[in-house]
């Protein structure tokens, strides 16, 4: 009536082969995704890590009479082309502020020009001739040129000179923007979620709000930028390019993330807790405030951190509201033009010089480090407070 085992096994051979093939194909797909990630990180690190090192030159600065009007006169003529222009530029100012400098001579480590920096990092450089290269090599042998930790990258604002450009103004801008974003999105998001989950009657309006929130989460971020431009800037007159308008725009984007995660957290608090609190005579608001919200807090925090990380990496809507500004000075104000880290990355990536590629990748490493720590914090928070009911 039926085939023997041997016949069946014979027929099964090719089917087993197909099954194994599916297993290895799917394994390969996952490995491919992992490989993408590895290549990506390796690429960013190899491009960006050099940005944390900066070539410095030890030079002698003669505060002569000439130098008071022309900074170039203060340094050796041979060296003036290989140190950063920013060094000579400030010398007259220094002398004006401190007249006692006149006539003195100072040995100091100063920034090398971006070309020297790139040359020493082994990248192809166009701006140096062979003579200059030979001179740099000699200086390296003498120990007068060194690669040092690029502290300026973390303490300075943007600059058109790559050796001078730093990420600090963007970091400050990001912090200011995120304060606005969270300050708006967190209370409104939590209140919305509490209303929908604990109070709202199940009617058409509530359903509309729910559908709407899910839709908001799927709308392309650039459209939020158009909203920010048309409503906040043109209609309400919020100043352009500021952390205020950027933060408000991002708040609207972060809102659905916080609402959805807060609702999940509220829903995971078991009904028995609510029943118990009602049972001892609490009003609905008291139940929510004293029992449900505290228990849901870890989940709400986790969701908010994830929303914050998302907002922090967002660029497109900020471009539309003008937050890709050139900000050389670090200013902490809600109503002055500012930039944020991803926008700074975007600005640098548009600069043609090789030195800025390195800065861009360096900025990316900083940005990724912040985002990954935020997400790790969210995961830890979830693990720590995870409760099984």
């Amino acid at each position, binding site marked *: 009536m039926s085939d023997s085992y041997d016949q069946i096994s014979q027929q099964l051979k090719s089917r087993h082969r197909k099954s194994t093939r599916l297993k290895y194909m799917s394994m390969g*797909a996952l490995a491919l*995704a992992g490989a993408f990630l590895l290549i990506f990180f390796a690429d960013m690190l190899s491009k960006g890590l050099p940005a944390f090192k900066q070539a410095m030159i030890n030079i002698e600065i003669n505060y002569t009479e000439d130098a008071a009007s022309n900074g170039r006169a203060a340094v050796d003529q041979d060296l003036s082309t290989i140190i950063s222009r920013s060094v000579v530029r400030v010398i007259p100012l220094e002398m004006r502020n401190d007249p006692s400098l006149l006539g003195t001579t100072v040995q100091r480590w100063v920034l090398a020009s971006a070309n020297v920096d790139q040359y020493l990092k082994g990248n192809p450089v166009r701006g140096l001739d062979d003579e200059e290269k030979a001179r740099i090599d000699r200086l390296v042998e003498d120990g007068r040129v060194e690669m040092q930790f690029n502290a300026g990258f973390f303490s300075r604002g943007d600059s058109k000179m790559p050796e001078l450009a730093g990420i600090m103004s963007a970091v400050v801008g990001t912090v200011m923007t995120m304060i606005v974003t969270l300050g708006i999105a967190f209370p409104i998001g939590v209140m919305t979620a509490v209303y929908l989950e604990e109070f709202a009657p199940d009617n058409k309006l509530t359903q*509309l709000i729910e559908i709407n929130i899910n839709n908001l989460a799927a*709308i*392309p971020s*650039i459209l939020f930028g*158009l*909203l920010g431009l*048309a409503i906040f800037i043109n209609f309400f007159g919020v100043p352009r390019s500021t952390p205020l308008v950027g933060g408000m725009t991002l708040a609207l984007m972060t809102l659905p993330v916080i609402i959805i995660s807060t609702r999940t957290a509220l829903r995971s608090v078991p009904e028995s807790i609510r029943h118990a609190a009602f049972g001892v005579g609490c009003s609905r608001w008291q139940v929510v405030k004293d029992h449900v919200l505290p228990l849901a807090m870890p989940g709400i925090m986790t969701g908010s951190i994830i929303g914050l990380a998302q907002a922090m990496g967002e660029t497109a809507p900020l471009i539309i509201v003008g937050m890709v500004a050139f900000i050389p000075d670090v200013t902490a104000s809600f109503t002055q033009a500012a930039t944020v880290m991803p926008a700074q990355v*975007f600005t640098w990536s548009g600069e043609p010089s090789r030195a800025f590629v390195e800065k861009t990748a360096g900025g990316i490493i900083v940005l990724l480090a912040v985002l990954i720590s935020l997400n790790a914090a969210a995961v830890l928070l979830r693990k720590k407070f995870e409760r099984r009911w």
Partner: protein
Amino acid sequence: MHAQPDQYAWFAVVSTAGPAILLSALGAFVMLLLGSEIPTFSLLLLSLAVALVGLGVGMKFIRSDFHARRAIESVILWVLAGAATISILTTLGILISIIGEAINFFQIHSFWNFITGTTWAPGNSFLAAAGRGDGSGAEFGSVPLFAGTFMITAIAMAVAVPIGLLSAIYMAEFAPARVRSVAKPMLEVLAGIPTVVYGFFAAITVAPFIVRLADSVGLDASFNNALAPGIVMGIMIIPFISSLSDDVINAVPDSMRQGSLALGMTKGETIRDVVIPAALPGVISASLLGMSRALGETMIVVMAAGMRPNLTINPLEEMTTVTVRIVAAMTGDLEFDSAETLSAFALGLVLFVVTLSLNLVSVIMIRRFRNKYRVNNL
């Protein structure tokens, strides 16, 4: 007494501060919005007066038979409900701002030309806005922009769907728990990378690689080719598809798998013919969501795709997308009501409609597909 003492106190606070804050907020709003000057000092004074009146009225209410708790809680309820309407206001805000400006645009340029025109050359419009020239040189035919957008999206989906789905299959059906516990966070990292970073990666690393690759087989590729942003966008979307698909595959009841295995099916056949068909609606919905993300993605294309509208099917050529043109229109030093700036809103409107309907289509397709699937055999 009908409430706790502190609830009476809270009621007093609410009745005092509430109207006063409301009034001052209203004043500030009017000042901002209408630009009319209300002296700050008098506004402050008025608010204080209202606060006093509020306090007086509030005190009158407070008696031992007054339900202070209920009064407070009804205020709280209204505040919460007010917060919930913000999300609706946001959507309305997007709609109104985009539609309003788009209508302004379509008053200058015909809708029909916008939808069917194959030349996008906004070049001269700013002259018209500045009062010089008549703007007749500007053309706003959006077809090449949408062609570029769909081309790059198609490349992204071609990368993301197979890799995402197969990864999900591996994680849900084959992977030992240890691999799973590593792979899931790994994919989440992929999802957490900001798009501006992906854009840099596409422009600096992937695009030159593709140019060299094309060169080595004798093809000519632009540095702004559509392939690089498409592939990188695909990588970005992998985690969306894999994590959702993983969820739905895990949601397929085990009895389904056992039923198939008990009939003498191999594991591969069980996955292909039973598990995936059962999970298909979820997989499709994940793919559509990924697709809507690809359509609206901005930074990757701004950084890696071209600026020049180009109607072609060769992915090695430069082409541009809707979002690129929106950004281009918004970052120039243009008057706000120039035709080019307004065109960004028209493009945004189309993008809004397309992504929104994609979400709807995803829901409808799932339903229809299920019905169709049950009727027809695979």
